């Protein structure tokens, strides 16, 4: 049984995973170097954008797959096609790699010539029934993806490794602070009433986040746009995750304020200016950011953390000034 209006070959469902990491470099890399890192192929250019922030995006690469789709029910639905992967560097500091694909129903029950699949890049075709719920729940599951099951995260990981291994980074690889990687698994399927909604956003263990979307058919037809939205969410979730971690490790409020300020300096130098939710999100998806701002309140938490850091800095500065002035006052009384 197919969803009403579904037709063979047209993706009914999008799935993807974004991995976000600190770029291996002490200082943010210049925009031109980011372009060099992301030059995965000679024939297609790296896309460079400078407004409203520095963003470099690699050309997409395809990986062929012939395996089964994720599932919670244990259904072994075979799929054949290609998974897209792309990487981007934001403000020379944050590296992201994304793997994503659309799922469509195949016409006929046999695998076709490979060129058939290359004519639909980024789509896998399934033989047999497409159980959206089962696939979505399977894909967003927190467990490890079993062998033989389509793994979009693996293609993202390989790309992340490839960019990270670029010799252009050698010589400046010490990172300014230890950071945690995050993985955002996302799915998008048709919205019954044509309105974009977030069905769920979950923080799981080990840096895993899941995001389930419902989108109008016109947006589903532009997987790159949906992937860009998810990259934006992933980047801001990564920023929050790492700022929280840095503040925790800095033991704010403990007696040794100088130490706390010292441990926070990488955050001040490297992270605080990166917050720009929705900077590269298509207009039709930007209302979804407002939803996340309402709950869990990304920017609210970020602003609170930033304010705490600034307060610490201010208090530290005052105490330094005070420490300088005290001996001076002693001088004048004598």
């Amino acid at each position, binding site marked *: 049984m197919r969803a009403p209006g579904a037709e063979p070959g047209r993706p009914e469902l999008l799935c993807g995973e974004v991995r976000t990491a600190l770029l291996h470099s002490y200082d943010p890399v210049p925009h031109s170097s980011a372009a060099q890192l992301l030059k995965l192929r000679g024939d297609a250019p790296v*896309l460079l954008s400078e407004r409203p922030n520095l963003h470099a995006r690699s050309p997409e690469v395809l990986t*062929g797959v012939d395996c*089964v789709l994720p599932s919670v029910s244990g259904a072994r639905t075979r799929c054949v096609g290609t998974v897209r992967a792309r990487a981007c560097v934001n403000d020379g500091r944050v590296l992201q790699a994304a793997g994503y694909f659309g799922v469509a129903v195949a016409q006929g029950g046999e*695998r076709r010539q*490979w*060129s058939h699949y*290359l004519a639909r890049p980024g789509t896998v075709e399934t033989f047999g029934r497409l159980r959206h719920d089962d696939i979505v729940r399977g894909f967003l599951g927190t467990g490890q993806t079993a062998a033989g099951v389509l793994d979009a995260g693996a293609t993202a990981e390989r790309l992340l490794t490839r960019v990270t291994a670029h010799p252009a980074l050698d010589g400046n690889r010490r990172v300014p602070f230890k950071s945690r990687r995050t993985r955002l698994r996302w799915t998008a399927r048709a919205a019954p009433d044509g309105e974009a909604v977030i069905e769920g956003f979950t923080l799981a263990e080990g840096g895993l986040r899941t995001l389930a979307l419902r989108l109008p058919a016109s947006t589903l037809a532009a997987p790159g746009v949906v992937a860009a939205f998810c990259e934006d969410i992933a980047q801001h979730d990564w920023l929050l995750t790492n700022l929280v971690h840095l503040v925790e490790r800095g033991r704010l409020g403990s007696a040794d304020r100088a130490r706390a300020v010292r441990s926070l300096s990488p955050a001040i130098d490297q992270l605080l200016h990166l917050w720009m939710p929705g900077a590269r999100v298509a207009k039709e998806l930007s209302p979804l950011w407002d939803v996340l701002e309402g709950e869990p309140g990304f920017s609210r938490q970020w602003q609170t953390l930033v304010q705490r850091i600034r307060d610490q800095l201010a208090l530290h500065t005052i105490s330094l000034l005070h420490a300088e002035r005290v001996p001076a006052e002693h001088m004048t009384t004598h």
Partner: protein
Amino acid sequence: MTSVFHETAAEPQTRSVPLSHVSLELGHLYMEDFAGGPERLREHFAKIAPWAETARAAAAAAVPRGRPRISTCFLIDDYFTRFSSPAELVPMVLEAAKESGLVIDYLARESACARAGETDVARVVEQRLVESPAPGSDGRRPPAGEVGWLSNGARTPGTSPLDVPLQALSPRTPWQPPRETAARRHSVFVDVELWDEPEQRRVWSCPFLAAVWQLARLGLLRHRGEPLLVPQDHPGAFPEDWDALPSVIRLNERAAAFSAYRIWSLLPSRFLPVEHAVRVILEQTEVEPGPLAQAAERAMAEGITLPEEIPDRIAYVFLPES
């Protein structure tokens, strides 16, 4: 949805090329054929001529409306061996064709399929290869590619230097046959050598350059959005040096466009294995979406339905050798 702000470096562009209905390739010769002199060339074109006529008629019949645009072309092998000079050889070829009533609209050099000007054309195509996955490929392991080779299925396990069993005490596995992925019950397994590197110099194989050539004829070759192997006008006298000859030259001012929706190659039958290899390569080449969409849209406007799979746009006539 339109936006008021644009950045050119952030938006991919693809330049389009003019397209004929059909491009006919009037045979192909090795250097030893040229060494056979004008007589050998005349023989070649005399054999091609009736089939070229048939192909032209069949192609014209498939054009739904308007005058059929059909161009002809010929590829000279100056890559593997250099023979004579353009000044001497090109007029000889044109003359021999003319005697059989054939007009060569475009002449191309095979070495331009490897490198044209500053562009490593063959590398551009190599980077667009997406290997057909064997059943069980889940994206976790990179395609089990052999560097410099491309097959149409799964090789016999354990024959690759890359999959040496690394772990001590791994059991030896018995021999397994290779398998064509799209086999209809029985396999026709092909493993195509794309290039080798004697003395650190990359030498592209004949099938790989032929695949590049067919993509150029289909108008699907781009480098950073710019078309490659774009025909230039006949320079007057032909030069003494092959390198001085443009990649593709237009010999007939009134010729229809070089690239076409569909292409025919009329070839001596000894080229069958090469063209089989070309299909193996093209079937695993991801063509840029820009030029693909441009060709499809224009064809549609002319009432023509293009096969979406690239190998299906190529037709062959294999001719007897003697």
